[in-house]
């Protein structure tokens, strides 16, 4: 286990190992996940398939470790929940997700999934998992969505979180939308989503620009689930309390049996107390976001990345962030965050604060950036600099510029 210092006192680097073979557009993926994971690639290359598998495995791990059993149907909780087409799976399909606490796998030849616990599940911390789908704009444009809460998929799950989050913002406590000069607030009485533009002009979110409709739900959920969510007291259900009690009793028996005594040592007692707290409340959020750049101008994409990295990295909690993107601007902005970390010691403090990214600088070791193309995956980080390879940006730019130069041949200037 790698331990890397960042803003939080200690960050235990998540290095879950993920292998995927022959699922949808993916032929072969073998990666270790990081605190920040970015998947770049053309349309239909398998980015979302990959992040949906990550999302499913994290959810399955949480349920298994907290409930003590896992009796969910794969087809229901993975295929239906994430809207995966059945043709994506074949007899050759396979995935395996190995974290610090569990090994979860699926074998297409038997159509069976398997979940195994590792020895150290005492240290497991309950996490909040959120999948923010590309279709998120709908919460901005369709009124009274509360009445549609009837299916179980990642869009409706997102809807529940959106409803949960927006109640926290009111005219007295508005949510600034990046540095766009726009603030969001919610009116509980009529479930209205309002944006204040130019300080005093209010408009309904459903009448706002497509960019605001896309970015507002995103900003709100990141803001809420990285911070306020953890200050709220949440009551455990009787069932949840019972499960925690049973787990602690079982562990107590195991530990005392191991020690050959009827009472636990002080050290074991501490570990059990800690485990109880770890399982009683959420400790961090795993964010998965599809295409954060949707409908956004390049500068706003940049500011959004800075916001995301700042919220994730500069928190006392060990949040993680996984993104899919088509946008080189997202990668440019991420590069600034990583390069800033690398050169910060060489910069005077006044120069540091002049740089827009300075609150978002992040150790490149905490970031994985991959390109998915033709069914396979490759890291596009330069091993020497730790940033996204300029070669990659150059390739994207030149692919477009080739045609421009071809036509310049014929241009009369």
């Amino acid at each position, binding site marked *: 286990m790698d331990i890397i210092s960042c803003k939080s006192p200690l960050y235990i680097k998540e290095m879950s190992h993920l292998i995927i073979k022959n699922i949808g557009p993916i032929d072969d993926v073998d990666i270790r996940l990081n605190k920040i994971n970015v998947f770049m690639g053309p349309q239909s290359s398998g980015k979302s398939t990959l992040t949906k598998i990550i999302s499913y495995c994290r959810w399955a791990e949480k349920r298994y470790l907290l409930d003590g059993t896992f009796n969910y149907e794969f087809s229901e909780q993975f295929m239906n929940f994430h809207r995966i087409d059945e043709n994506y799976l074949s007899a050759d399909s396979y995935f395996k997700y190995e974290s610090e606490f569990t090994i979860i796998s699926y074998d297409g030849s038997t159509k069976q999934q398997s979940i195994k616990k590792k020895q150290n599940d005492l240290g497991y911390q309950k996490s909040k998992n959120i999948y923010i789908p590309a279709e998120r704009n709908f919460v901005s444009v369709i009124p009274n969505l509360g009445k549609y809460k009837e299916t179980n998929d990642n869009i409706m799950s997102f809807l529940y979180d959106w409803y949960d989050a927006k109640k926290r913002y009111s005219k007295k406590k508005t949510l600034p939308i990046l540095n766009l000069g726009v603030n969001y607030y919610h009116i509980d009485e009529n479930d209205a989503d309002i944006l204040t533009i130019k300080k005093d002009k209010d408009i309904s979110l459903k009448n706002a620009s497509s960019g605001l409709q896309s970015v507002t739900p995103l900003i709100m959920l990141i803001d809420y689930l990285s911070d306020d969510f953890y200050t709220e007291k949440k009551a455990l259900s009787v069932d949840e309390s019972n499960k925690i009690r049973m787990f602690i009793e079982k562990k107590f028996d195991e530990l005392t049996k191991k020690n050959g005594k009827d009472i636990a040592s002080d050290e074991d007692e501490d570990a059990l107390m800690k485990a109880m707290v770890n399982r009683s409340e959420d400790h961090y959020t795993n964010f998965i976001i599809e295409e954060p750049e949707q409908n956004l101008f390049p500068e706003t994409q940049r500011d959004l990345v800075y916001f995301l990295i700042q919220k994730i990295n500069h928190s006392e909690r060990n949040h993680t962030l996984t993104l899919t993107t088509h946008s080189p601007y997202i990668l440019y902005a991420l590069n600034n965050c990583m390069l800033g970390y690398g050169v910060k010691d060489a910069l005077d403090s006044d120069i540091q604060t002049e740089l827009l990214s300075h609150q978002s600088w992040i150790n490149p070791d905490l970031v994985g950036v991959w390109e998915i193309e033709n069914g396979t995956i490759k890291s596009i980080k330069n091993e020497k600099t730790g940033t996204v390879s300029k070669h990659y940006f150059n390739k994207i730019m030149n692919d477009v*510029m080739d045609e421009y130069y071809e036509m310049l041949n014929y241009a009369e200037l």
Partner: protein
Amino acid sequence: MIDKITELLPDHTISMSASPDLYIVDFKNINGGGVELLETEPVDVKSVYLKNIQPIKIAFDGFKDNALPTDVAGVHNKQCECVVFPASCKATDWILFIETKYTNDLRTAFDENNDYPNYMANQIIATVEYFRTKNIIPQKKRVHAIVSFPTLIDEFSSYFFQGGEVEEILQNHRILIRATNSALIKSEKRITLNSI
């Protein structure tokens, strides 16, 4: 064009090749040699690559030092590294001028004091103007040019000319210039400065 070069620049040597793969290397700063055209990819030396898909027969003039004498004794014109063109020498054929710089770090390539984008473009422009003045190529003929950092170009070629210089040079000098390390020879009439 071959006849004109031979007549006006008798010290020049024109090589011919119909190889499908052409590699141009400036050995000056590598082993003190000259600019050479190779048919196989050189080992341990980066080059400018021309993919000759048909292939057609091309002519190559690699410039030695002081290759473009002026009317003033002892004074020579600025010059780039070489010129390549179809051996058919028709009026409709493309003509490609190439300027290279061998440097191993981006800092040097982008150092404002070196001003490489302008410097390299000016070497090309001066060479093309010389060829026009001497009527080796027609006055109004539009030509192609590559500026290349063979050791670095893959990293940043799309960023080299950023301020509309490409269009200005095309408009003012009838030179279509691109920072790249390669080109695709499609026919005697067509060459694409690309990013392969």
